């Protein structure tokens, strides 16, 4: 315990030890709820996804290209759930 006072190091360690359920249990509100993903177990997929998402946004931020039509539909559903309405 005495080894580090760096919160980022500690919280990453904690996430590793306890899994995201407990980690987010301490944060509770306002977090996205996942039906199947588990931010701890699926960290590898998450990292991959973030690269994909940033690439897509860099090329087609409004998701208007024909190949991204499918994404746009589901993303808009997500946004509606967040209470922001379709963008």
């Amino acid at each position: 315990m005495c080894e580090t006072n760096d919160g980022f190091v500690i919280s990453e360690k904690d996430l590793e030890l306890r899994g995201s359920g407990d980690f987010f249990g301490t944060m509770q509100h306002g977090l996205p709820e996942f039906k199947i993903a588990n931010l701890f177990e699926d960290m590898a997929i998450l990292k991959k996804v973030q690269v994909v998402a940033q690439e897509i946004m860099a090329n087609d931020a409004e998701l208007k290209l024909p190949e991204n039509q499918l994404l746009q539909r589901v993303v808009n559903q997500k946004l509606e759930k967040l209470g922001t309405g379709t963008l």
Partner: protein
Amino acid sequence: MVDLKKDVKYIKGVGPNRAELLNKLGIFTLQDLITYYPRNYEDRSKPKTLFECVDGEEALIEVVATSKIVETRFGRKTMQKLMIGDETANAEAVWFNQTYLKSKFSIGQKYRMYGKIDRKYRKIQIMSPVFDEYGTTQNTGRIVPIYPLTYNLSQNVIRKIMENAINEVYGNISETLPEYLLKKYSLLSINQATKNIHFPKELEDFQKARTRLVFEELLMTQLALLKLKYYDKEKIKGIAFSKKHKISEMIEQFPFTLTNAQSRVLDEIEKDMESSKMMNRLLQGDVGSGKTAIAMCAAYKAVKSGYQTVIMAPTAILATQHLENFEKIFSKLEIKCELLISGITKKKKEDILQRLKNGEIDILIGTHAVLEDNVEFKNLGLVVTDEQHRFGVRQRNKITKKGQNPDTLVMSATPIPRTLALILYGDLDISIIDELPPNRKKIQTFAVSKHMQERVDNFIKKQIQEGRQAYIVCPLVEEGEDNNLKSVIELAEKYQKEIFPEYRISYLHGKMKQKEKDEIMLKFKNHEIDILISTTVIEVGVDVPNSNIMVIEDAQRFGLARITSITWQSWKRRISIILYFKI
């Protein structure tokens, strides 16, 4: 293509009664149903001979019925026994209170059964097995899904319903991921993934299905947040605050110099504020790293540019503390601050609301109370929320709507690794204060086991004799609030009677009324209490500079993130921490 919005009651095997039970699980549509994923699986696909079965294990057997069901009655209960056998041994299948089974078996017929094996001496029993006629695979002979919480629906029923639903949708669900992503990342099609997540043939099927579904879920969430950010930035016209009033004027008011990290963050914020784009920024930094000073600077710029600012804190105590700090600085500058929390009198509240609407109040500091509909601003320009995780995206939206696209600054002391920050707050830009003011004492943390309690108690005594104060934090008891309550009161009594009879001890817990809590915190702050014992309610963090020690009992129950958040969010700087572990 199938209509996934179809009411679940029209799915084969559901009907109005079961639909009601499904509704309780949050399942209303076909879509909800097929995304109600199993929590686990049981491999019922690998048969064993009776000879191989071990006592206590769950096993699949393939047997022939060698008798009719014999029912025995004792009291109100009944027991059904069926003699069975395979080429290696004979056995009994046993059920309780399942009278209807009588007609289900015929002598000489082969069945698959799955259940718990009870093997004592030479006798083999299989207890309450699920079964199929050989050749069918409703309950056995494959990997079966186990669904989470099902109310009064048995696993069998929900499994059957799911099977019907999958049969209906399989091959007819419109793809949700673009072809190029499926190809590039070798992901299953939505149809295959949906089928295999519920009814995998092999474990590998399940893993592939899960990967595809997780990929999609995370991608859509991440894209939604990034799109929100893009939209806020590019499409919405925000407020361009005046370039004439520089944050540096405010910095001169502080009795201390800023750290490099603070200066860097302030540059980022000033740039955001002066641009006509909407600011949506998350500011992360330990307690004591100087987030409040940053908030003051931003508020100063907003007010000087002719706009109002609102600061939202998660608790009344914190809001009050903010007000005190703000007034110290802003009263000199003739900037008017007010406090809006639920505890104030109706008259005072009405007065505040009136002046807020007229623009006579420059900075409003408060709790959730500021979200109420009757709170109207003249021209809200800046929203600062303290402790992000207590205010969700939705609440942020609500407060933002009280102005014309005001800038938003979210402050959080909880450290979040980068990858997670992106999926949790991907709609925000992130600034980090990764440096503490030079005079800030590092927190000392000691982990000790319970047998060192005497030494620790003596240490506390010494501190109190020197005029300091201490916190003792109680273990969290998982079974519920009542137990927490008990443990706090018990602990307080123990300390008062056995260990520190000469000192003033008081306690706090989550079931107390806010007013009581505030009173006790105030007493502690005024040094009318020496030792405060509490559950984690004290986490909301009042600055009591005279306290310098905190003891956390049964620290292993809290988890590191919790402990670090307790230590940072609350006592700022001058405190040593002792963690008891049961070793």
